[in-house]
């Protein structure tokens, strides 16, 4: 049985232009598998999370919305008709809104939920226009007709820009990411996991689908996609490392990963624009692969973060600490997730990074050094900054001594919450060791998007599989080598004095947990280098005089898009709208007059 064969099911639907048409091609299959895995894990975890929340997360609505979300996600990735897609998309968005607002007793949750609702509907508005235009051009609302139609370069540009606005809002592309860092901390953790792992990836799925419809883009647009992706990635990771709330940190890290995926996708578009099939397929393959990877390690981290939040009662990095000793399983899974997201071998993240770097650095496909070198070095910068942000996250949360009473008494959650984390962590390790099956699926999807027959890139695909096989083997070798050295160490220490002692305090005898390095101090040297981009506001009252009584320092890194650009834009907008607002004054008679005038005008026009 060929798992990658195309399967379709079409049933009539009474709505004009609509049909209940679902299908499974390689791209859908990749994302459907991810949806099922992540929703399964997050749903199972959610049961434990709801039970352990002592009524803070209302059980029945949370279950209802989560199941609706899961089903809607399945339809989003399999829909083959624009109306079915939009219906599933909207159901997904509303169910996610329901989940985000689970704890609607808190004002900040209500604010985050509303922001999410506004953003997702703005995005849907663009999608409505996009599909209306596609439908008008193709003469039907079936995806197969969208793909069969021919588009002029101007149409392609317009459609992709619309798609970028609509799908990018969901995915969290700069500067449309504004809802992510608000909604993810507000949602219960299993919902954050599903949202970060699959809901925002639906934006990527939509973009890939759209690129499959319209065909090769003009070169400048492809390059702009690369630049946009890199800007998003750099922005996301810089803001991630400036955060104190660890779920916010993870949300910004999602922005970073989406940026990397968009950059890879842009590289694929560039390959397609310049009619180089291997580059096009490799770029799209890398995008799909990294999206799938992100769908594994980000839910894992959110689930672990949720367990920590429940155990300690705080999302503040500087209130956690010492949890590796108190929550050994959660800590271990978190360590795996953190290493995977940093792209470290032998885990899955490395495979995705390797594919992107191969596109950029491997000579012989005629890439332009002017594109590849800056992209590669920016990706390297982003990768290294990821290590800063994620060691900050894992190190502050799990290592050292507990910084609060909540952290001191923390315990591992119930098995029902640990098993899903274990499954996701095992997937991260397994994909790192055996990348071949996922690569085969991603290549098939990439070839579909690039509209290249799989046979045309078969030699290259075989070579990538072979090279990644070597990477997997070396990964296995690394595990073995680590195991062997561990055994050597154990053998050396056997029978010798292994004593407990205090941490070296530089001669100071009474260190306390509060003297540990804090999150802000950990990222300070890095933030200092990028101070111009972060624009952190500080409030510093130094100690003055001979007998200073009080000194304080606080810093806050506000999101520029949400806190600066959006208000400025909204002010400008409301100024413009004050003109038409004159006809909206609340007098019912006038409104009825408008309605009747409108009807008369329409009648006159049609008569």
């Amino acid at each position: 049985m060929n798992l990658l064969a195309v399967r379709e099911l079409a049933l009539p639907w009474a709505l004009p232009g609509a049909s209940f048409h679902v299908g499974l091609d390689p791209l859908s299959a990749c994302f459907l598998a991810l949806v099922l895995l992540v929703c399964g894990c997050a749903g199972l975890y959610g049961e434990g999370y709801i039970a352990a929340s002592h009524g803070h997360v209302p059980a029945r609505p949370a279950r209802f919305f989560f199941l609706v979300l899961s089903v809607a996600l399945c339809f989003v990735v399999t829909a083959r008709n624009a109306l079915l897609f939009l219906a599933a998309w909207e159901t997904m968005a509303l169910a996610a809104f329901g989940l985000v607002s689970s704890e609607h007793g808190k004002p900040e949750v209500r604010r985050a939920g509303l922001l999410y609702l506004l953003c997702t509907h703005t995005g849907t508005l663009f999608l409505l226009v996009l599909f209306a235009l596609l439908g008008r051009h193709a003469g039907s609302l079936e995806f197969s007709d969208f793909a069969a139609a021919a588009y002029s370069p101007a149409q392609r540009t317009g459609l992709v820009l619309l798609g970028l606005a609509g799908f990018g809002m969901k995915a969290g592309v700069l500067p449309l990411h504004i809802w992510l860092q608000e909604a993810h901390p507000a949602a219960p953790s299993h919902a954050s996991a599903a949202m970060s792992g699959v809901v925002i990836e639906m934006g990527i799925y939509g973009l890939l689908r759209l690129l499959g419809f319209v065909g090769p883009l003009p070169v400048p647009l492809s390059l702009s996609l690369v630049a946009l992706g890199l800007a998003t990635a750099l922005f996301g990771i810089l803001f991630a490392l400036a955060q104190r709330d660890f779920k916010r940190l993870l949300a910004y890290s999602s922005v970073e990963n989406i940026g990397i995926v968009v950059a890879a996708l842009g590289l694929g578009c560039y390959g397609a624009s310049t009619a180089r099939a291997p580059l096009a397929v490799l770029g799209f393959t890398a995008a799909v692969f990294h999206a799938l990877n992100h769908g594994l390690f980000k839910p894992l981290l959110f689930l672990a973060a949720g367990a920590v939040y429940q155990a300690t009662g705080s999302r503040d990095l500087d209130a956690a600490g010492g949890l590796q000793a108190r929550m050994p399983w959660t800590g271990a899974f978190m360590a795996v997730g953190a290493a995977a997201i940093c792209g470290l071998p032998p885990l899955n993240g490395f495979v995705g990074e390797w594919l992107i770097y191969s596109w950029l650095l491997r000579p012989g496909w005629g890439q332009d050094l002017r594109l590849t070198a800056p992209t590669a070095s920016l990706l390297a910068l982003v990768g290294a900054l990821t290590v800063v942000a994620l060691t900050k996250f894992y190190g502050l949360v799990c290592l050292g001594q507990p910084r609060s009473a909540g952290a001191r008494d923390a315990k591992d959650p119930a098995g029902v919450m640990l098993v899903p984390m274990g499954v996701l962590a095992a997937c991260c390790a397994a994909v790192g060791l055996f990348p071949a099956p996922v690569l085969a699926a991603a290549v098939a999807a990439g070839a579909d998007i690039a509209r290249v027959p799989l046979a045309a890139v078969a030699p290259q695909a075989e070579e990538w599989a072979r090279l990644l096989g070597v990477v997997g083997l070396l990964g296995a070798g690394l595990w073995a080598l680590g195991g062997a050295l561990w055994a050597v160490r154990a053998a050396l220490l056997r029978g010798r004095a292994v004593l407990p002692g205090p941490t070296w305090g530089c001669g100071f005898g009474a260190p306390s947990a509060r003297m540990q390095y804090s999150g802000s101090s950990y990222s300070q040297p890095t933030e200092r280098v990028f101070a111009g981009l972060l624009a952190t506001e500080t409030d510093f009252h130094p100690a003055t005089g001979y007998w200073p009584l009080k000194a304080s320092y606080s810093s806050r890194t506000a999101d520029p898009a949400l806190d600066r650009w959006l208000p400025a834009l909204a002010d400008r907008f409301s100024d413009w709208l004050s003109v038409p607002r004159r006809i909206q004054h609340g007098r019912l008679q006038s409104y009825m007059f408008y309605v009747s005038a409108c009807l008369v005008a329409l009648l006159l026009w049609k008569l």
Partner: protein
Amino acid sequence: METLTAAAAFAAMALVVPHVLLGLVNKTKAAVGGRRGPPVLQTLYDVRKLLGKGAVYSTTTTWMFRLGPVVGLAATLAAATLVPLGAVPLVAFEGDAILFAYLFALARFVTVTAALDTGSSFEGMGSSREVAFSSLAEPALILTFASLAHQAGSLSLGGMFSPPTGVHSAASTVLAVGSLFIVLLAENSRLPVDDPNTHLELTMVHEVMVLDHGGPDLAFILHGAALKLTLMAVLLVRLVMPVVPGLGAWGTAALGLCGAAVAIGLVESTMARLRLVHVPQLLVASVCAAAFGLLLNLR
């Protein structure tokens, strides 16, 4: 036979050469300072002594602290299989350069987490500096790799760092060498970024992260650090040294490594450590050097 030679070369490079290299660096520093200096193999003796000891573990630490040195050394050894010492590396494939860079990132990740596991502010400080500096060294390394891969037509360390046929004075190579040398100094915590000899916790980067390690763990760390320095020095040597007639590949590599050790020793003897806030500037300079090298490649 060839496999045997390769395995023997690998064993030598993985076990002894790193300590000889460090010994030569220390001898150079001693000579410039007018001292006799420790024996060439002193660091090897240190490692052997540490391997024979027990250990003291802080009660704050967990298995993460014990895992750090083990995984760090494993990652560095794995990276060593990719580096061509004399003729060919043990393992070579298109794209191994990326793996090489990421294996060092893995070593850094576990060293940093092991340091944070102690809950000591000193080690937090060291980790924080380490990750900050490497976030600027990484782009320089990848840019240099991009430039070399473009020149060599291959993304494998063996191809990218094949010895030049004559004395190479192409400006792009000079710039690549300069950039790599700065990365080497920064990544291996040498002067002017970090002073490997200092014993004041507040000023250190790498050494402060391993303050709490002892016994076999510290032996693993010291050996891993020496090996990392050697690997990067080997790459640098292969970039500049043509095969010296009469010496063969091995002799050339040995001679080149001695030269690299002397160069590092001279830098350490003649320069003071930079102020911490100026280290990023040095690293940005190395990125710029790599970028200029690349621009020359665009012709």
